[in-house]
């Protein structure tokens, strides 16, 4: 079963001149698949991630997310869907400053229908699952880059979503922290069956996925299976 179905997806901006960011993009993602989207900057990969992550709406084509035709959804319905079924991991971490790790991880629950007495436990479990139980009450400013990104992953997990969209999650990290983060992401995919859509411009990162879609000038250049898949946990010794 597919969790993502895009057909002829198009996104253009009209600021004086008509700029086409994405054109004729069609592909599907299976539930539980690990997909990497690659491309140089300006190729439209961030635009695609925003559309797939329901943060933006396409100007053409059809997008079916988890069996739902989301083009008819209101912004409130999209917000609800993002909250329940999607987790985001950003390059810039985007943690709330002066707020503890635990509170940061709880943030999506504020906007969810999850009953409040589950919040604490869920957030703790998520923090533990990324190996930061000793940092529970620390503030983001006291954490290393790799730890910050692990907090962001815990935050993405706390609502138990179907898909995790990761936008250059290792882009701001040194290689060791980057591998650690990739190991966690791979673990989520393999052990917990989460669908992962990873955006990156590094081949070495993309090759942790099962499949790579390469974008060029807003169109799909290639869509290939990864032959020699990397396993982050082999390279990273815990």
């Amino acid at each position, binding site marked *: 079963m597919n969790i993502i179905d895009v057909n002829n997806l198009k996104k253009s901006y009209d600021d004086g001149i008509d700029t086409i960011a994405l054109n004729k993009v069609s592909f599907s993602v299976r539930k539980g698949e690990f997909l990497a989207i690659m491309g140089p900057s300006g190729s439209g990969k961030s635009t695609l991630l925003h559309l797939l992550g329901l*943060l*933006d709406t396409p100007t053409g084509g059809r997008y079916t997310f988890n069996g739902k035709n989301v083009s008819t959804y209101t*912004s409130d319905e999209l*917000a609800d869907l993002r909250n329940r079924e999607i987790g*985001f991991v950003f390059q810039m971490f985007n943690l709330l400053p*002066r*707020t503890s790790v635990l509170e940061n991880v709880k943030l*999506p629950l504020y*906007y969810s229908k999850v009953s409040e007495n589950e919040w604490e436990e869920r957030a703790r479990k998520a923090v533990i699952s990324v190996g930061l139980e000793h940092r529970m009450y620390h503030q983001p400013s006291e954490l290393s880059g790799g730890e910050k990104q692990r907090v962001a992953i815990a935050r993405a997990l706390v609502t138990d979503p179907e898909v995790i969209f990761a936008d250059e999650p290792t882009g701001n990290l040194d290689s060791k922290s980057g591998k650690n983060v990739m190991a966690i992401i791979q673990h989520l995919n393999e052990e917990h069956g989460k669908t992962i859509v990873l955006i990156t411009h590094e081949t070495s990162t993309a090759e942790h996925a099962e499949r790579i879609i390469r974008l060029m000038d807003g169109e799909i250049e290639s869509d290939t299976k990864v032959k020699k898949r990397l396993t982050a946990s082999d390279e990273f010794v815990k």
Partner: protein
Amino acid sequence: MTWKHSIKTALTGLTTNRSRSFLTILGIVIGITAIMMVVSIGAGAQELILGQVQGLGTNTIIVTPGREPTGPSDSAQMFSDSLKDKDIRELMKLTNVPDLKVLMPLVAGADSASYKSEVYQVSIFGGTELLADIFDAKIAEGDFFALDDVSSRADVAVIGAKVVEHLFIDGENPIGQKIKLKNRNLKIVGVLEKGGGGSLFNFDEAVVVPYTTANNYMLGIKYYHHFIIQAKTDNQVQSTAEDVRRTLRESHGITDSSKDDFYVQTQEDLANRLGTITSALTWFLVAVASIALFVGGVGIMNIMLVAVTERTREIGLRKALGATDRDILTQFLLEAVMLTAIGGIIGIILGASLALIAAIVLSKGLGVNWTFVFPWDGAILGLSVSALIGLIFGGYPARQASKKSPIEALRYE
């Protein structure tokens, strides 16, 4: 998002920028403080004035010659000699004013009184033996003069506390002594208590004599400055006032009430009028103080707009994680409302404290019986106005925040 967490989130937003939050609400604090002070002091002044009027007794009616002044240019009408002996006779007839209990003619003047080598400028009041009762003035020493003194035009006087202080500097007992006033030697029969007469009239500097003595020997006039009338009961005040008007019109041969050469005021009229004046003044000052509130509101809007821009990424993140436009709107609106409400509460406490200090200073310094009034209306008004300012001036920035697109916001550097 539940209210509990909205409030928690808003509080976190406010406490992360404590000094800025404080400076932002300063305008609101000053505005509310000013309003609280004005309303509280206004209420104190009103109580003071009404208390003095009420000293006259609620069944009191005052008749004054001349037309009721309608404006400053009309003041000449106040000095008129229309109240005469004939009017007293007419008013005293039971057929004319059936519920009249007391009628006292009152005349007033001023001159220097002397005793031995001491001289003091005094006010002269001419009334009857009932004057002390009517004006609630208490006798400290001796007695008030009697009805006999009034009918015999006796040269007797009751004097106020300050007159004693200034004329009898040796501490001599004034009772039985004679002071000189308007070329008459007045024998002092009584001394009034200090601050005697809790009413509009202050007798501390007064020499009170029988009106007959005053009119015939001292002032040389054949009319009266006021008639002080009391009805038998409070319920009969209005009907008695009407009877007085009708009788005086007949006595003066007036058919058109707009041509009245006298005017009749009940104690209630007086209280209402003074009450209206003080409230008008109070609310005028409140309006002035409100300008500070408005300026404070603009400050709130300014800072909230800055906060929205500063926190663009946070807004984007929250939206990506599932916050609806409404959640974001509520968050920023709550921040603004909490900010102004806190400002309002501080202002209320500060304003009430300053009003309390003012009340203490006024009652000690001026020696008046000034009571502190906590202005509940001012407090409720202040709190609701400050919350409203938060809603109005926080509304625009909050709306801006809620309308941000999540990707624009996440991309913002």
